[in-house]
């Protein structure tokens, strides 16, 4: 089954899940960072050029530092997110889903030189699409992943619903589906809701609108509505 999720079981037997991020959002994030670096260096050049050779020397040192340490510093001190990654809601972590450390971040960013070859990150692109975790060469060497940072879901507003306890025991995934059914009832067309409810005739013992209504109330019950 194809899926972008990445799972890690931690020693307590708890499974952590994250969504790996592919080339398209990462390329966009890189472009944003690239533009930010460009603007910064341009402003720095305006300041340094009046100082002649000395200024150019300092500017070159600055270029070196920005080029190599911009991603490292942001990744280490800003939760694995450069400004570009933050804009796209993605973040660098180690492959056990712990925060990225200075060493690993340095390795993955120094290896951009390898990913860059032969022209504008072609090797990086090829490695990314040839493994299911979308790791480029630097990621493979450092043992890091780029994952998407979960957005906090909006609290649903539920009005005028009296909760109904389900008549039978439900698995966690089924409970989630009931809640989803309630939350997404705005998006789903009415006939489609009836169609979905009819699948559970045997469970809810209600036909058509009655079935839809029962499912909504069960969903509300799982959300803690009295």
């Amino acid at each position: 089954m194809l899926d972008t999720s990445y799972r890690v079981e931690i020693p307590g037997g708890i499974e952590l899940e994250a969504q790996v991020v592919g080339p398209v959002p990462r390329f966009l994030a890189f472009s944003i960072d690239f533009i930010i670096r460009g603007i910064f260096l341009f402003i720095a050049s305006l300041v340094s050029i009046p100082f002649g050779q000395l200024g150019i020397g300092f500017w070159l040192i600055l270029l070196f530092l920005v080029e190599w340490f911009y991603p490292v510093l942001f990744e280490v001190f800003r939760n694995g997110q450069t400004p570009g990654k933050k804009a796209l809601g993605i973040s660098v972590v180690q492959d056990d889903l712990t925060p990225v450390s200075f060493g690993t971040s340095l390795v993955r960013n120094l290896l951009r030189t390898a990913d860059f070859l032969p022209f504008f990150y072609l090797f990086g692109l090829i490695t990314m699409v040839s493994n299911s975790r979308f790791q480029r060469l630097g990621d493979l060497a450092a043992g890091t992943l780029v994952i998407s940072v979960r957005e906090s879901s909006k609290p649903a507003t539920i009005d005028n619903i009296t909760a109904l306890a389900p008549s039978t025991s439900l698995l966690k995934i089924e409970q989630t589906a009931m809640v989803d059914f309630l939350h997404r009832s705005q998006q789903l067309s009415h006939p489609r809701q009836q169609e979905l409810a009819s699948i559970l005739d045997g469970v809810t013992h209600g036909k058509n609108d009655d079935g839809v209504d029962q499912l909504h109330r069960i969903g509300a019950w799982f959300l803690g509505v009295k």
Partner: protein
Amino acid sequence: MNLDKLQFKASVRSGWQAIDLGYLMATAWWRTLFMVGALPSLVLFIPLLIVFSGNPFWAGFIIWWLKPFWERLPLYFASRKIFAEQTTQSEVLLQTWSLFKKDAIPWLLWRRISVQRAFNAPITVLEGLTGKSRRSRLNVLQGKYSDTAFANQAIGFCFELISCFGIAFMIAFFIPDDFGFDTHSSTGDLILAGEWFYTIFWFIAMMLVLPFHTMAGFALYLNRRIELEAWDIEITFRNLAHRKQDSTSKAASLALTLLLAILLITTTTSNSYAAVNHDSHSAQQLIEKVLDGEDFGQEKTVREWRFKNLVEENEDKIPDWIIDFIEWLEKNVDFSNADGSPNYTATWLKIMLIVFFILLIVYLLRRYRGPLMKLGRGKKTGSAPDVMFGLDVSPESLPDDIPAQVMLFWHANQQRDALGLLYRASLSRLIDQHALAFKSSHTEAECAALVKTRGINSLSSYFTGLTRVWCHLAYGHEIPELGTLEKLCDDWSEELGDAV
């Protein structure tokens, strides 16, 4: 549409995550997707190259303009593949014409410049909608994903450029200069050979990247449909209905089993307890079996890079003062023979030898500094404790005539003090005279054992006896007889009395 067979995990993803899923699909089914995209276009590309042999860019451009059509076959294949329908490459290729002619004119003309092509394509190719119905369907589907669909198209174009120039440059690097191959003339203009070169790699890049953005657009379209039609909920509901159906049919057989079980239990109540409980031995065996199993018994080798212990290596480095010393030598030593002619070699050799020996001595001193320092400290300076098990054992704390003082305490009815003093004095003398390395952490028995290691039999048997009597008094509150004490006092003078 059989959702049970869906080949990817149905859930409502964000636009970006849907695109990532599309890239996963493209890599999973890469071979067929690439072939069904590349073969029909190659069939057209080769004649076009012949026709436009003087200006091959036009061949590339025509192939590029017809891209919506090349994308249709991979899309058709993927639409079968996601529901696990077995479709072979040749079956897809047979569909070429019927797929190409769907709503061809608009796609050939104005829709070619659509910036959300890959997202919109399934509506034409898979749903077969045209005209007004297509537009209204598009309005329903596109919604909040139009930006993401555009980004997919734009970045797909970037990837195409990167692939084209990346591959072309890499090949160009590897062509030896002797071949005389050049893409540009000496004035920097692109020559015909270069045009051919780049057109071919443009075509290759187009075909390599095509499955990716096509699948990304398709995944985005699927994601929107999952969102609007709640595929994920349908799948879960279906599974739930199945589960409940199974459990009701199971319930009937369960009732029968229960009935039987009750019958059995009532007849064998006396034995049932022993049957259920494991005795500790078999339980231990069971535990070991579980621990040996796959869940616990796995071993794996993990290799990683680590920093060496740099501090340890630095220990034997040449100190700075040696360098200073050599510099000093250079300034002050006369590098000349007896007749005044300079003789650097011999003088340097002499200095090197002297320095070498000094270094050797310094090194040896450093290397064996531990044992040497112990040697220098001698017997007395051993870190003998002043207090052992709460008793002060320093020589200063003791009276001059121990046995007399002991008897004095005894007759004053202070038996504990009497024996305590005797024991204390013994420890103190053992430390002082026999240089026993007691530590404050030693127990009485350990002290006695240590005395035994000295190999003086009479002393060790005396001390062992004393220790026993003392321990009995100190911890067991057993007061020894006067005779025992008197004998201990007499022997004390013999064994540990003032030798000085």
